[in-house]
């Protein structure tokens, strides 16, 4: 049985697998979408996603890339 931790994704409480990184989170919850991710009030470069493991109570903002104006 896998261990889980609690994080907040766009304000909603969420249980995720312990050790999950940002890339896995994106693949699980926004697969195929062009998104950016902010972790604890810092927008993370996409290249850093696989290295960034989620921690208990992390605050994650995942938002779609848009270009209108």
């Amino acid at each position, binding site marked *: 049985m896998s261990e889980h931790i609690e994080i907040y994704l766009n304000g909603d409480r969420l249980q995720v697998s312990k050790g999950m990184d940002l890339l896995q989170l994106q693949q699980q919850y926004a697969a195929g979408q*062009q998104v950016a991710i902010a972790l604890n009030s*810092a927008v993370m470069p996409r290249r*850093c996603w696989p290295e960034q493991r989620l921690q208990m109570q992390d605050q994650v903002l995942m938002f779609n890339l*848009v270009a*209108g104006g």
Partner: protein
Amino acid sequence: MAIKSIQQDQPSMAAAFQSPSALQPPLPDPQFLYYSRQLLLPDWSEQRQVQLSRSKVLIVGIGGLGCPAATYLAGAGVGWMVLADGDQVEQSNLPRQTLFRLSDLGLNKAEAAAASLKQLNPFIRIDTIPHQLDEAELARRIAWADLVLDCSDNLATKLAINRLCQQQQRCWIGASASGYQGYSWLIQPGNGGCLSCLGHQSPLAAGGCLQQGIYSPLVGQLGLQQASLALQQLTMARQRPSFMQIYQHHQQQFSQCQLLADPRCECCGVTTDV
């Protein structure tokens, strides 16, 4: 010459106009009166007002973001603005592009906006670029400006501004919106990340208003944020590191986030993969 000064079209306004460099404190009475409510702010001063009057701002795109941004920068007294947009005013623009009226339909957006702004503040200079900027001209305009506002509606332009501002170490302020989603940012080259650090390089990757629609109050809010950030940037000595303000529709609030640099970023990174 493509650039046309509205001042040339309005000789009566020319008398009221003083070039920013000629303006010295104290402010002339008409300007003191015009800016009086702003001057009452505890952290504002005539000196700060004069500093603003000497500022040069390039605004790329005069649509849903550019209209509110330009309105409030003109009203605040930015001394010299260049408005760039090659599009014409269309009926579907009117609900959110508040500088335009039905009588402006078919007119170039930059020129229609400049005419409207000149009615708002006769003490500033406004020039227009009524066509799409190519990269060489964009680079020249960025070099001229103290600050660049990206109010464009496409990722290709945003990435070009990002790259050229990085090359010239010029601060720039941008925003994007589509549907109920949107965010603004301030990029300070050498102090935090840039737009390319997000890792999205394809101009086709991002959705726009034509596909997803647009919530007009949101794009207006983002344009006002750009204006507010610009006023701070132009008149305060402190340099802020790059950051984003992200709109969360379900909570109807903005979250401010630092924009971290990617050391391997193709645009601003200091290292490259071997």
